[in-house]
């Protein structure tokens, strides 16, 4: 059996999500190769070749793949997929965008967001916002899978020496053009990669009050997140959202402030190692998952907390 992992990268380096996906691919068994599709992405391909246990790295370097346009990259993956039994990608916004298109081109299902590999054709995945875990079996001859990154510990980034092969095929569907990207400028770590996350909910009352989290985040080197309620209320942008329909995080320390703990939110953070909840409502469901709960008014507790750390 052979598995192709689709690398998440920025042309220069590979992202940790790739290493989580390789871990899932290894759980499937058999050979694991990595595809790096991008533009001037040789450095990323060389980095992928360092991942131990990888057979070879396929590098598709072309302007058509510059911004991971799903229309183009899906044609490439479906083309390369002919030699593989499984195609695996991390369930990042890129993976979620491209992989269903790949599956449809191959006329197979996609198994989304798996959290475990039970056997080469059987997987566990959360459904209904994480209220239920389904065990599903794929009957397709080839499997297209996206991986919930927090559920698979990343493999080592270095120590291997796979060969890098150029893929010459150029697929430009001519359907879409990249216009611009606004990457949130921040000195803070990325939400899904941070070892500490501090999130605010509806209890923050407005967007300005998120400043109360910033001083703490600066001191702890934390990323700032939010519940869906806070996003819905317009306090912060959607890319802050932690939850089943937002980002899935599993940091060493997760601090939930003014968050009641809707199942939607819990689905996105309950695999964190230590969970702290600060909420003035002592019956808030968040306390049922918190290792340390503090029943307090966040507007007094947060400045105290910032001063004490």
């Amino acid at each position, binding site marked *: 059996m052979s598995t192709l992992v689709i690398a998440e990268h920025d042309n220069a380096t590979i992202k940790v999500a790739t290493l989580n996906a390789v871990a899932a691919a290894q759980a499937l068994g058999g050979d694991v190769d990595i595809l790096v599709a991008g533009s001037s992405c040789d450095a990323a391909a060389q980095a992928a070749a360092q991942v131990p246990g990888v057979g070879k790295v396929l590098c598709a370097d072309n302007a058509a793949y510059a911004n991971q346009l799903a229309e183009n990259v899906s044609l490439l993956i479906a083309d390369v997929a002919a030699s593989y039994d499984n195609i695996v990608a991390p369930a990042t916004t890129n993976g979620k965008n491209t992989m269903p298109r790949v599956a449809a081109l191959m006329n197979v299902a996609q198994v989304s967001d798996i959290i475990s590999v039970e056997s080469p054709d059987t997987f566990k995945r959360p459904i209904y916002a994480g209220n239920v875990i389904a065990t599903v079996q794929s009957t397709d001859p080839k499997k297209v899978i996206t991986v919930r990154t927090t559920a698979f510990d990343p493999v080592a980034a270095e120590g291997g020496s796979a060969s890098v092969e150029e893929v010459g095929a150029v697929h430009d569907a001519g359907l879409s053009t990249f216009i611009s990207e606004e990457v949130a400028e921040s000195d803070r770590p990325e939400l899904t990669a941070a070892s500490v996350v501090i999130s605010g909910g509806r209890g923050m009352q407005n967007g300005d009050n998120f400043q109360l989290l910033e001083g703490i985040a600066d001191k702890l080197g934390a990323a700032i997140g939010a519940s869906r309620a806070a996003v819905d209320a317009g306090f912060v942008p959607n890319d802050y959202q932690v939850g089943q329909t937002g980002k899935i995080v599993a940091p060493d320390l997760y601090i939930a402030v003014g968050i009641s703990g809707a199942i939607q939110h819990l689905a996105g953070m309950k695999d964190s190692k230590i969970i702290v909840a600060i909420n003035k409502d002592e019956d808030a469901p968040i306390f049922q998952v918190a*290792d340390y709960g503090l029943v307090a008014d966040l507007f007094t507790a947060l400045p105290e907390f910032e001063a004490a750390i």
Partner: protein
Amino acid sequence: MKALVAVKRVVDYNVKVRAKADGSDVELNNVKMAINPFCEIAVEEAVRLKEAGTVEEVVVVSIGEKSCQEQIRTALALGADRGIHVEVDGRVEPLEVAKLLKGVVDQEQPSLVILGKQSIDGDNNQTGQMLGALANMGQGTFASEIKIDGDTIAVTREVDGGLQTLKLNLPAIVTTDLRLNEPRYASLPNIMKAKKKQLDVTTPADLGVELMSHVVQLSVAPPPERAAGIKVEDVAQLVDKLKNEAKVIS
């Protein structure tokens, strides 16, 4: 131009869904059903395009048992013009939904297809992208803003770490994220009017699709419980625990 919007009947988002005791499936007897929230945002966006004069007709399609006509009527009450019900029994997998929608796209020839980014039951996040592949259309997934300009559409997408804007040739697929808009409530007169709007029923056979199964659900179970911890007295005790017990801050 014509906009096609796909809507799905799902368990209402306020319902806490549980696995049946025998683990065969989730308990769906006597639970409140509703239009999938992301699909509602899709309907709202299409109706706004019509109100702005960009779109002439909004057609809404749903795939499922007869009961999903309720959700089509909901969409019609929100301002869609006409409904199509593709009648299918039981669970239909995303790839098969995409094939049925491709059949509807072939018949209706819309310039724009708007879908929710995912349904809150299966949480697959697949159908729009699959339809894009089958219909050979560009896709703007997880959209937070769209602007139609002649025969192209600019879609701003919510991606990891920020926003990305793409330009797609029409016809194109858009899937909605939370912040695209805030759906309106249907007024009583519009609910009454919706009952008289045209709703056609079709079948997979009419659309030339033979349904297949690719993924079998073997069992369902509740997620592992996380043991509750302790309540601390004050901030000082919290910081002490984090430093000396959990050792997650120094």
